[in-house]
């Protein structure tokens, strides 16, 4: 009986304390992650594994809540390729765009859905399982506001109940949460992607205008197409097709049904105009569009009145699908996070390539809100890209805050060829984040050993030491790149013309000394690194199998040989033997006491 009373008493006291939180000292954490979406969870996973003091704050009562609402039509467009014919788990991640990085094989999206494009609810379930199975610390129903500087080293923030939290490092993983609504006249007559009706009956026999040529616009069109009279899609500039640009943020083929109906003359259509110059007027049930300076004017050349304006017919429904932007209201004035300055990047916070806010040391970003770094270039705005940049951030933080150098492998240089070929063939981070993350090979002074680190943001190459804790001068950077297109527009596969490869293929940059900060800042458009001493392209492969003995491996060996000015051929023991007996120095593959020589291959007794 007694313990029972004590328990009740204790519970009572708890209730009191909860009521008095405002006066309690702040909860203190080394790491505060805001948002339990895929990137927050991914970063949480790595902090958890490193045994760090962290907490994820989530506004709703579930991980991945964004995906409870979005995409509105509930089908993800990230591929769930369940089979590749290979068992290599790292390789298979190249073709799994949904799973987060995990050492638990059961946490692969292929176990959750058989659909190539899974239902968004499945992804929410996945993220909940991910959180639970890894025991990631998430504080739900906690809406963080007012992130501010507490002192030089710490941040302080509050939740909706005025609880305060002191944080050594804040990482913002809130995604892009605000719908982008430009100001134009008559905006009140339009509905947004975020609140449009999902009942197809509401579009029955309606004429619809969709603003925005992105995936959400086309996705919406596909969804209601069967009910409408016809749909026009309006945008400022021409849509770009993802398969053509290699940028997954551009229009995906899975969504481009309207292009089909448009170009097959089924009334639907795509037209171009600037939204800001338009005026939407409601007359009766119909929404009319006028374009000041256009509808009343004349064709300049002919001076005839325009009577065939594309937008002359009114619409029943106008839907805005103009994307999302970062919610800067999260921050107090003391934390001055600026929007991106470059056109098209205003929707993102301005950050460095270490994912740190400009001018706000200690405030980091993760996930889709870091996409300003590789917008229109790589996959950093998407799950299959930012799962890797979240890992990169965890490594950056480990070194920055705990002096833990990046994980690396150090080996005799004779092992480098196999090491690189293995990465060519399986590495998923450099494959998904092509042109952004690269493997780095560093060398000891006499080049007898090398140190290999994986998935480093190549834009930080000049800061290699300060970001990773590894020191080097001579460096080899291995990245994946698509080819330049003006030469060939199809797959070539000619080893001697590998630099003209059309598809994603490995490229090696060799620097005898690290590029300077100046060189990194003055990169010319279209290049990811400054001019190297030497460069090697391994020719694209139709099967993405870069193990062809001559086309891939032999030419790579010649490149490594030319960088190090040494013979890297495998030799039989008799060849090594005669070399060792007649010269003071033997070739690297025959180095005395080296692994390779110990494990010598018997053969070829021909001494000469």
């Amino acid at each position, binding site marked *: 009986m007694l313990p029972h009373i004590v328990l009740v008493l204790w519970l009572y006291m708890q209730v009191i304390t909860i009521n008095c939180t405002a006066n309690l000292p702040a909860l203190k954490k080394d790491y505060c992650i805001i948002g339990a979406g895929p990137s927050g969870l991914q970063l949480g996973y790595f902090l958890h594994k490193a045994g760090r003091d962290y907490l994820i704050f989530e506004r709703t009562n579930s991980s991945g809540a964004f995906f409870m609402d979005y995409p509105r039509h509930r089908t993800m467009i990230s591929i769930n390729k369940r089979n590749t014919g290979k068992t290599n788990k790292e390789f298979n991640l190249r073709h799994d765009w949904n799973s987060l990085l995990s050492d638990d094989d059961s946490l692969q999206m292929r176990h959750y859905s058989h659909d190539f494009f899974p239902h968004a609810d499945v992804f929410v379930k996945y993220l909940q399982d991910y959180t639970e199975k890894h025991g990631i610390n998430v504080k739900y129903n906690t809406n963080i506001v007012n992130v501010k500087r507490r002192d030089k080293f710490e941040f302080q923030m509050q939740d909706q109940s005025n609880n305060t939290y002191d944080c050594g490092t804040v990482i913002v993983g809130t995604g892009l949460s605000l719908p982008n609504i430009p100001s134009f006249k008559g905006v009140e007559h339009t509905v947004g992607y975020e609140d449009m009706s999902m009942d197809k009956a509401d579009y029955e026999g309606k004429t619809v205008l969709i603003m925005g040529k992105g995936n959400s616009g086309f996705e919406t069109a596909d969804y209601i197409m069967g009910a409408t009279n016809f749909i026009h899609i309006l945008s400022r500039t021409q849509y770009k097709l993802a398969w053509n640009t290699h940028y997954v943020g551009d229009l995906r083929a899975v969504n481009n049904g309207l292009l089909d109906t448009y170009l097959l003359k089924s009334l639907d259509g795509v037209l171009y105009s600037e939204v800001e110059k338009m005026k939407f007027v409601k007359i009766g049930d119909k929404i009319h569009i006028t374009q000041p300076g256009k509808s009343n004017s004349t064709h300049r050349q002919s001076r005839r009145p325009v009577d065939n304006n594309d937008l002359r017919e009114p619409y029943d429904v106008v839907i805005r699908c103009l994307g999302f932007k970062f919610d800067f209201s999260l921050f107090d004035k003391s934390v001055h996070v600026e929007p991106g300055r470059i056109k098209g990047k205003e929707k993102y916070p301005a950050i460095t390539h270490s994912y740190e806010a400009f001018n706000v040391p200690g405030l980091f970003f993760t996930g889709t809100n870091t996409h300003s770094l590789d917008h229109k270039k790589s996959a950093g705005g998407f799950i299959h890209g930012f799962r890797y940049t979240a890992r990169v951030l965890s490594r950056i933080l480990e070194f920055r805050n705990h002096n833990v150098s990046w994980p690396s492998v150090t080996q005799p240089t004779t092992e480098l060829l196999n090491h690189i070929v293995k990465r060519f063939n399986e590495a998923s981070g450099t494959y998904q984040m092509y042109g952004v993350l690269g493997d780095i090979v560093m060398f000891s002074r006499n080049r007898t050993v090398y140190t290999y680190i994986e998935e480093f943001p190549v834009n930080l190459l000049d800061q290699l030491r300060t970001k990773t804790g590894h020191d080097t001068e001579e460096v080899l950077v291995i990245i994946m790149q698509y080819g330049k*297109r003006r030469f060939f527009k199809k797959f070539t596969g000619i080893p001697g013309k590998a630099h003209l490869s059309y598809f994603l293929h490995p490229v090696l940059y060799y620097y005898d000394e690290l590029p300077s900060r100046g060189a990194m800042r003055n990169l010319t458009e*279209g290049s990811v690194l*400054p001019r190297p001493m*030497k460069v090697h392209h391994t020719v694209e492969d139709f099967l993405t199998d870069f193990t062809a003995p001559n086309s891939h491996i032999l030419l790579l060996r010649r*490149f490594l040989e030319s960088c190090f000015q040494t013979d890297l051929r495998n030799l039989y023991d008799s060849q090594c033997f005669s070399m060792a007996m*007649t010269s*003071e120095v033997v070739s690297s593959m025959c180095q005395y006491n080296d692994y390779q020589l110990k*494990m010598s291959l018997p053969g070829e007794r021909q001494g000469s």
Partner: protein
Amino acid sequence: MAALRKCSWAVLVLTNLAVFATATDENLLFNPLKSKDLNDFVSPPFVRVVYFFKGELPLQQPDRFLLNFKQASDILEDYGVKTATLHCKNEAMNEYCSRKHSVAESVFIFRGGNLLLEIQLASMFNIDAIVSNILQMVMLGEVPIVSDEEKLQQIMDMNKGKQDVLYSYQRAVGTLEHRVFMEVAFVYSNQYAFALSTSTEVARLISSTDVRHPTIWYLQCKSVSPMDASTKSCPVLRYTGPINLETFSKYMKLISMPNVLDFQESMLTKSEFDDLQVHRAYIFTDAASYKSTQALTAELGSHFIGSMVFLIVNVNKLPTYVVKQLGYGSQVTEVPSAAFRSYGSNNLEYMSVKFTETNIRNFLKHVLDTFNEETMDERLYTDNHPIFEVPPQEIQDDPVAEDAYLIRNKKFNTTSIPALTDKTFPAMLSEKNLFLVMFYVQWDPRTQVFMEHYAEAGRMLEHMTSDNTSPLARVNCADWPDVCEKNDVIRYPTFILFKNHKRMSEYQDRLDTMTVVKFVSLHLQQNPVTLTTKAEVTQFLEGGMASTGMYVLVLGLFKEKDTEELKAFATVASDLRHRFMFGIMKGGSLAEGTAQYFGTGLSSVVIIKEQDKDEGFTVLKDDLTQGNIAKFIEESSLPVFPALEPENFVALRSLKKPFVILFFSVDNSKVEVRKVMTEMAKSRQFNDFVLCYMEVGMNSNSMGSFILHSYIDEPSLPTIVTVNHDNGKLYNYPMGNDFSKQSISKWLQGISSGKAGLQTGELKDGKWKPLLPAYDFLAMIDSEEAEYRKEVEESMGGGRIPSRSGGTAPKPIPMPTSEPGTPPQPSIHTEL
């Protein structure tokens, strides 16, 4: 050193990996011949090949040469060449056997009871080499090796008006291509003359372009009438197919048959061409132009001989349905005209331009090239492809990779080395008490070459395990990177031995069958083993469950009270148990008796080396501490006076002492010095040095000879050279006539003490630069950029594009506005 490199480069091209046989009967000789039957065997007027074997039977290890020789013999039998091996043991009276060592270094070729010649084993390194060398010897008259242009000219002149000549440039004698040429020459030597050279100089006589790869030319000397012999040269046709037996013999068959036929006649008899899978050219003609077309076709026929047959279709003479089928009336509306059908195809390709000789030639050349291009993939790796010249950068010069490529399709039984997965690896770890796993990546050439031998080791070890299953397995890290990562594997191949469900040790030794077998079998047995009965001692000394001589045995003989020594010995034993078999005997009369047998008393460590012919065992009596025992084992387990070979180089070199190498020839009367040096080694008074020997042999290509010549320009045998690898210094023994112990000792003491004037040379520097430069993509990109910029400037009317510092793309030229709906031009992303 350039010579060495050049040669090793050649070797890689020629090498085929020897096949290690598995069955035990292969450890015996094949076609065995007794001495008394030798005369009968060699007396027929045919070629007979005999190898005199001097080793022990059954073979302890598969002998590469014997295995190759056996397989080559099967092939040679088709050419009427019979082979035999004669085991010299117990045949001391045989004149060849009594020729001592050199006999085993050569193969002897007889005909009609006479010894034609000996071929050194060194040039018989694989099956191709054996077959081609022996056939070359058999047909030295029919297929002369011409050394200069004049000789080749003579051969052509001689054959003018008589017969055609097939001449080949070969990179070397003994290659696969050489074998193909010889095998074909054997069949056709009665119809054609043959010749070959290994010098590109000679080939220049008939080839306007430089020859880099083995090539065959068909010299149509028969067509030159003897009248014109002095003025006209033989028309030259280059054989453009790959040099393999199938294709080249098909070619020979084709050129031996008429290749211009009347279609009607060819219909009557089932053409031989059907079997030959040959391209056909159809020449349509009518009765009126038949004669002239026939003459033209004959010309074409000799030009395209070997690549296609010509069928003259007389549309007036053939039934309508036949000519219709060939497209006459539809595709062919006027005659004469031509069409082409590649073999395997049912469709004809028709010439669409005017019927002239040049047009037909171009048409046929074009369709032939197209066909070759389409089938090029399969032939990409044949050196001598007519169209596709492989740049030297893309030609493999890594001998191991080259071998790996050659054996890539070879099938062998891998059941003894199961490939494990993320599920089966943990299962095996919990089930098996002992197993060795090779973690590898499948593209690694060393692994590819070793795999078959690893499987072989697995099969050999099956019999040594309690459950008769192989204790070997493998994990492909390209399939299961997670499994490899969990085992901390970062280099390939890595071999990890798992014992009692835990990682025990790594195997880091030679990639060869017997070394693996030895390593694993030492772990399979109880080791160290305590010996208490006479039977146990006997069994131990006979090498436990493995055959005698496989291991070096280390026997610790202790008194009961020697606890310290015992402990030290046990520690060393557990450290080195993967290399040696350890036995322990403690006190009692059996231990004492055993000690006595080895001429020592209790508290001794005895190393027993079955394979050391100079010193069967050696004993350590004093200071039985852990360090001393370990040092003793490291230094004394090797043969006391070893032959210096690739196999033991690493072990000897790891002693970090200068090598004192006795070079001698077996025929040398002063071989007495070998005994002197053996005694010196056994005395252990020269422990600052590794005393060893190399046989120089008769063969100037032998390893010993090669190494010796790098030290001394004109050596006389025997001689002694001291090589200090640590400082590169060489010391040639100065007193060529005095090989007494005193003189050698004095010389060595001089070297030890750094006495001036003894050094005679030094090892070469040895800078191992890359053989070839890499493709310079940076330069290619730069020049393309420059060209591009120029084009753009021109197209923009001279406006300059700002030059760029990086190897980067200039801005794309503005594209014309796309039609609505057409995919827009992509923006350029991340590119160099």
